[in-house]
């Protein structure tokens, strides 16, 4: 099970759609399309004015529900997944953002704060993968 050959137009058009989603949310709703922020707030029972966070989440999940087989698979030892999930959840809330909030919206907003966060999480993730795959760990 390895990485797929992804046609470049998939990468670019997919990215453009993600950016368009972020653009619609900030222009119409005045909000940042950060998944960890939206999910974290919903988990605290804060669905936002009118419940906009729920509406966003419904839209987000609909394509996957319709075209599920395109998703790829998550397969790893459960302990690793549980640990990784905890770290991703804790880290994104503590750092107030993830790949979408800091990586896409923050950088598009020319935010030095988000640029710093993105540099840190990509750098640390690369280091983690290096240690796991080439460093004799795991």
């Amino acid at each position: 099970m390895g990485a797929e050959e992804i046609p470049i137009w998939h990468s670019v058009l997919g990215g453009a759609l993600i950016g368009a989603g972020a653009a619609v949310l900030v222009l119409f709703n005045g909000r940042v399309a950060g998944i960890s922020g939206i999910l974290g707030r919903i988990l605290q029972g804060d669905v936002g004015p009118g419940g906009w966070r729920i509406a966003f989440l419904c839209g987000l999940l609909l394509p996957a529900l319709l075209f599920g087989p395109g998703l790829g698979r998550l397969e790893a030892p459960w302990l690793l997944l549980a640990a990784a999930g905890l770290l991703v959840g804790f880290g994104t809330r503590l750092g107030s953002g993830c790949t979408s909030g800091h990586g896409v919206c923050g950088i598009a907003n020319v935010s030095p704060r988000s640029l710093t966060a993105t540099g840190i999480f990509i750098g640390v993730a690369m280091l983690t993968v290096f240690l796991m795959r080439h460093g004799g760990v795991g």
Partner: protein
Amino acid sequence: MQLISAFVAGLLFGGGLLLSRMTNPQNVLAFLDVAGAWRPALLYTMAAAVAVAFPAFWLARRSRHSWLGLPTDLPDRFRFDLPLIFGSAIFGVGWGLSGVCPGPALLLLSRANGDAITFALALAIGMLGADHWGRRTRVAAPPSPAKAAVN
């Protein structure tokens, strides 16, 4: 109206994630594996997303209200603090271990396989834990004039 625009925004975002194939953890890990068979696809996706969102944020920064008349609620761009640094580093470890960040974690749930559910449950617990801990430390600390980052 705000529900329709939020739904459409989510739809575009979710469709884009799916099309870019970044829901597949192996494709993300291939980008993170700089010493292996490195693949730049995630970079193309992110660059395209930033390029499209950039003019929208440029406009949004210049107005206190959105096109629907809602208040523009953008986070502080220049505040640097330890939670930002440590939180991002902790996220990076989890992302490197799994190749999954919060968006794809939710999309993968639609397959309803055990591994996706395990990850999503742990994700939710981690988020609630961080917010609970954050509230406690904020209560202990003197009130800060800086608005809590909403992202």
